């Protein structure tokens, strides 16, 4: 392995750092897990590959809904600030701009930070690595201008740069509904949202907002080609039949310079393969993912998961899963405590309330297939 100056790094000569609980990923799930484990008394470290903590929260300009306990009415970007401040007040180690590059024998992980390769050994690990955006195969899908919807959200809301002037969005899940609304906020035109199913995928509130703003949601259609020479100049869409096959003669060209792909996310579970956790394919939850029980414990007793890695869902559920993972990782090391037990039980209750909504049926049926032990 080489560092950012091209020098070869030697893992063996770096000093081994030991601690109780290492949290990998500083998004809503990982931050909450770290906070809970630390509050219960464990020596905790959080490793994150970004310069600032918060994960995907830092680009969420919309207000969350639900109950007060789940930051209802607070914008995602502000939740990131609240959690980061708590981390600072609790005073534990955070490695910024650091990427975990491997899980080795004896439960040691390798961490690349700038030009250093560090080795860390924790007694328990909480993985909250999140997920990456899925790509869609269509003609010219590699043309510059075809971007992940979350990628454009990052460019726009974190860096203040919008990589285009007129967008077509593929997919009408929550990301496919929220990002176009944010594009409008930034003064960018949204030509249409294209959805292959016969109904909108995301929450009604988000769909209503975007429809009120005058953006058409075109159902039973898909993209078949990106057009343009060096960059996207148009999207060619087509109607589909009941078997999702394109219907010839229904093609339409929509002029745009950005095509945003918002068709879902896949959990980032590479490190868990290395750690020997059992991984299974559960499409309802997002694809290949680590099996875990309701304590968020994987098939390895010292490894916990939470957030999108454990189930592609929302920031509010990620935080609740983080609470459970933090409390249960502490319990594995120090035995059951009254406070830890209460935190986990309360979070489990709140999760089951959120998941009792008819919108969450798919998630619940997926979770019922997660039987690791």
């Amino acid at each position, binding site marked *: 392995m080489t560092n950012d100056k091209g020098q070869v790094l030697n893992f063996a000569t770096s000093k081994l750092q030991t601690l109780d609980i290492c949290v990998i990923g500083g998004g809503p799930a990982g931050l909450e897990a770290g906070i809970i484990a630390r509050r219960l008394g464990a020596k905790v470290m959080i490793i994150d590959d970004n310069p600032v903590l918060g994960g995907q929260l830092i680009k969420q300009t919309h207000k969350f809904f639900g109950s007060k306990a789940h930051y209802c009415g607070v914008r995602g970007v502000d939740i990131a600030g609240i959690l980061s401040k708590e981390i600072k007040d609790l005073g534990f180690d955070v490695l910024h701009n650091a990427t975990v590059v491997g899980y080795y024998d004896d439960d040691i992980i390798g961490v690349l930070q700038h030009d250093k390769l560090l080795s860390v050994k924790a007694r328990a690990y909480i993985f909250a690595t999140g997920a990456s955006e899925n790509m869609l195969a269509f003609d010219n899908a590699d*043309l*510059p201008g075809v971007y992940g919807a979350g990628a454009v959200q990052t460019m726009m809301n974190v*860096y*203040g740069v919008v*990589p285009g002037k007129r967008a077509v969005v593929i997919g009408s899940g929550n990301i496919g509904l929220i990002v176009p609304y944010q594009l409008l906020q930034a003064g960018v035109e949204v030509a249409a949202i294209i959805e292959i199913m016969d109904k909108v995928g995301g929450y009604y509130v988000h769909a209503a907002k975007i429809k009120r703003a005058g953006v058409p949601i075109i159902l039973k259609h898909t993209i078949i080609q990106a057009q343009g020479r060096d960059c996207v100049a148009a999207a060619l869409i087509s109607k589909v039949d009941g078997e999702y096959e394109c219907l010839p003669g229904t093609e339409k060209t929509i002029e745009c310079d950005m095509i945003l792909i918002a068709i879902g996310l896949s959990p980032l579970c590479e490190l868990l393969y290395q750690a020997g956790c059992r991984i299974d394919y559960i499409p309802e939850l997002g694809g290949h993912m680590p099996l875990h029980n309701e304590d968020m414990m994987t098939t390895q007793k010292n490894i916990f998961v939470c957030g999108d890695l454990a189930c592609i869902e929302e920031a509010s559920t990620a935080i609740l899963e983080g609470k459970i993972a933090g409390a249960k990782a502490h319990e594995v090391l120090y035995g059951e405590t009254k406070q830890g037990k209460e935190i986990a039980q309360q979070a489990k209750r709140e999760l089951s309330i959120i998941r009792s909504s008819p919108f969450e049926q798919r998630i619940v049926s997926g979770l019922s297939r997660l039987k690791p032990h």
Partner: protein
Amino acid sequence: MDGYLKEHPILEFKRGKKVKFFFENREIEGYEGLPVAAALHAAGIKVLSFSERYNRPRGFFCAVGKCSSCLMEVDGRSNVMVCVELLKSGMKVRRQKGKSQKQ
């Protein structure tokens, strides 16, 4: 410097100081501390590299350092993910062709 959002109903952007850098030997201005890809897009540059076999233009995809769609040559180093590489004054950025030969 036209591609930067000037007004936003919710967000306020704190930007670093304005610096000069080079894209294909051409001098461009950008804000220090922003990812190189953001600075290039603000300057209207979307093609970041060309594919190995068919020389097809490529841009970024994930913008969070995961997918490797945005690899460029930066200060003589190849395969740099410019969506997470932060801009510094005087940086020399070039479009990468395929896997590139540079270390």
